[in-house]
């Protein structure tokens, strides 16, 4: 008798368990999506403090500025419903929308906007989180309008108005972000996932999918398995090899560009990279075309300075041809610099970015030809942020640098000698002067010219070994559609919708 009861119990439990499985599957297609991301949002959830491109692309969904970028690279009104610029280009007047709510239910007031802007402006010591904001003379509220007065005209200023608006009385933004975007933050389990939920009181077109789980897939090798197994529905950056594996499966592969500058960034302050000739020698030895061919199946755009092709206005295609492979020349330069017998150095690469690891592998081979030994050192992403980026304790690293706003400044200002973002310790008085001049030039054409000159300096001084703007391959489950590429590093989840 006992045996029979036990048997019945077991089969009932089993049946329930199996039902559970089945139920999960049918629900999957409706109003939730699991998006794989390559790293945890380690740096900060505070939109003003976040530094990693991977963090900012997610925060794009939670926060908005007075204006926001659309998928064509234009600025469209967000928290502000309209704005006007005075004739002398010194006064910007923004009219707030009345119905914009924060995720905590409070309505966005002019005070919140002023707080958010001032938080990034001059802190009294002449420093600012956003250096363009040092130019702000005053921020005033006039009725429902925000009036920003500048000290001097700045054609790029409007681009910075995508700055995230946060509630003024909130102190824990870094762990509990509250914004006005189409998605609100629910929770984060370190190294596991981040959960977002559709914000139903969003002022604009609401998101299609209600529940979003951002699953951290730090191990690049398991991404295909996660995708095929159904635990991840979407991954914004897969490699060509991974795309090949997904052929014939339930995934669509979309192709765009990543809009970042992939390079072997060199610490210009350490030997032997403090010698321009050594950096140039490496640039002559490294062949981006071969890297693109070997590691990326020919997908990618070779670049030669800290600017990517999507920034048509500033991009100089010719910079890519300055260091066409020339082993003899590279050896000569090394000999001149006193390294005729070569030298050895470490390339630090974050282990969660397979494309950068693959690139580094090819670089190691290419450098052997000029007698330089490079060793790949893989580290975790959070160590990369703390040691390489913040601590500047590295010799070389392969990584992609993106632009936070649609301005040349976003790409170029970081290489000014005393910039806090100048992690490669690039130092060139002429460059500093050019950027400084560009920042203080209000004629658009003249400013563009100065920025282009600055790009040439980065190229000629071989600040880094520039490689490419990576092709972006997006894997999206055929149950979903609507993904849009942006000219900046952004993952707009609100546009993704169920396919039926």
């Amino acid at each position, binding site marked *: 008798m006992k045996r029979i009861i036990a048997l019945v119990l077991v089969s009932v439990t089993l049946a329930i368990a199996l039902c559970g499985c089945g139920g999960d599957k049918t629900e999957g297609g409706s109003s939730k999506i699991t998006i794989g991301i390559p790293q945890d949002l380690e740096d900060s959830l505070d939109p003003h403090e976040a530094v990693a491109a991977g963090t900012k692309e997610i925060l794009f969904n939670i926060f908005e500025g007075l204006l926001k970028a659309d998928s064509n690279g234009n600025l469209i009104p967000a928290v502000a419903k309209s704005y006007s610029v005075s004739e002398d280009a010194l006064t910007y007047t923004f009219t707030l929308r009345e119905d914009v709510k924060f995720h905590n239910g409070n309505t966005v007031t002019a005070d919140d906007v002023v707080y958010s802007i001032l938080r990034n402006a001059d802190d009294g010591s002449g420093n600012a989180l956003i250096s363009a904001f040092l130019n702000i003379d005053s921020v005033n509220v006039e009725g429902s309008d925000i009036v920003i007065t500048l000290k001097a005209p700045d054609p790029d200023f409007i681009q910075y108005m995508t700055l995230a608006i946060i509630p003024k009385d909130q102190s824990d933004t870094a762990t509990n972000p509250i914004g006005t975007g189409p998605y609100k933050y629910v929770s984060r389990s370190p190294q596991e996932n981040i959960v977002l939920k559709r914000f139903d009181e969003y002022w604009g077109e609401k998101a299609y999918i209600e529940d979003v789980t951002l699953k951290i897939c730090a*191990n690049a*090798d398991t991404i*295909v398995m996660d995708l095929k197994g159904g635990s991840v529905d979407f991954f914004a950056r897969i*490699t060509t*090899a*991974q795309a*090949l*594996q997904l052929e014939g499966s339930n995934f669509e592969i979309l192709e765009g560009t990543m809009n970042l500058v992939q390079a072997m960034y060199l610490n210009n302050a350490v030997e032997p990279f403090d010698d321009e000739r050594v950096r140039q020698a490496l640039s002559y030895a490294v062949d981006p075309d*071969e890297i693109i*061919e*070997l*590691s990326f199946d020919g997908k990618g755009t070779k670049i030669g300075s800290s600017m990517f092709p999507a920034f048509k206005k500033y991009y100089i295609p010719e910079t890519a041809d300055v260091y066409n492979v020339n082993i003899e020349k590279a050896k000569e330069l090394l000999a001149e610099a006193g390294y005729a017998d070569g030298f050895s150095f470490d390339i630090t690469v974050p*282990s969660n970015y397979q494309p950068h*690891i693959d690139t*580094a*592998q*090819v670089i*190691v*081979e290419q450098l*052997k030809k000029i007698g330089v030994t490079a*060793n*790949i*050192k*893989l*580290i*975790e992403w959070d160590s990369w942020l703390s040691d390489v980026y913040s601590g500047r304790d590295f010799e070389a690293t392969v990584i992609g640098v993106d632009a936070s706003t649609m301005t040349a400044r976003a790409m170029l200002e970081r290489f000014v000698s005393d910039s806090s973002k100048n992690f490669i310790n690039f130092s060139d008085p002429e460059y500093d002067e050019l950027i400084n001049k560009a920042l203080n030039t209000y004629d658009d054409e003249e400013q563009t010219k100065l920025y282009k000159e600055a790009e040439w300096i980065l190229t000629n001084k071989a600040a880094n070994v520039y490689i490419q703007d990576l092709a972006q391959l997006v894997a999206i489950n055929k149950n979903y559609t609507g993904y849009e590429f942006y000219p900046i590093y952004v993952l707009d989840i609100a546009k993704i919708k169920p396919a039926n």
Partner: protein
Amino acid sequence: MDKTKKLKFIIGLSITGLIVLMTLVGIIKTPYDPCAMDGAAKLAGISLKHPFGCDQFGRDILSRVLVGVRETMLISACVVFIGVFFGTIIGTVTGYFGGWLDEILMRLNDAVLAFPSVLLALVVIGLYGSGRYQLIAALGIAFIPSFARIVRGEVLKIRNLDYIQAVRLYGASHLRIIAVHILPNLKTVLLSSIIIGFNNAVLAEAGMSYLGMGVAPPAPSLGRMLSEAQAYIFSNPLTAIFPGIVIVIMILGFSLLGDTIKKN
């Protein structure tokens, strides 16, 4: 030794011999530079030039397998050496002297034993970065407890034997008793556990490298090759098949050898 056993022994020995030969070849000379890339030979199939084909960077898989075997063998040898060396010391001391030292060391031993070795290795690599030496250290530590246990058990048995008592009555020092009368008798037990340990070390190294925690790229190791091949397993299975087969053969050889030695 009966016939099947003898056959097993011979097969095991010849496979192990083959692996050792591959290791030697890997040390001396490979057909190609294992890291040299060739765009034209990208994912090339089997040919006279490349008997095992080429991987996604156009690197010769045969050369990489040879060097990979060398890498795996050297790491495994170091790991087993660390395990045996410290394991024997701990096992002998605790087994021979007993008392509170035995209690403390053995409880520590149990703690390490209870800890999954992959986790332990993760901790070491998290702290000191990934690489060949960190991997050796991590796996070496993880291998100590099992050897310590085996040796301790054996020493416990031997130390109460009559001849040891006799030597003790002669007034021999502890050191002499351990070195001259106990250690040599551990030989057989150690030999078979070394071979089994070697087996485990090969698997552990392959596993850790597969997870990206072993030797740094572009240097080949069998586990890393498998891990890199994963992306091509359906489109170009060659990249995974050869390193996979070699791992299987290695394990098979050592298992057969270990089995036959143990039973004698």
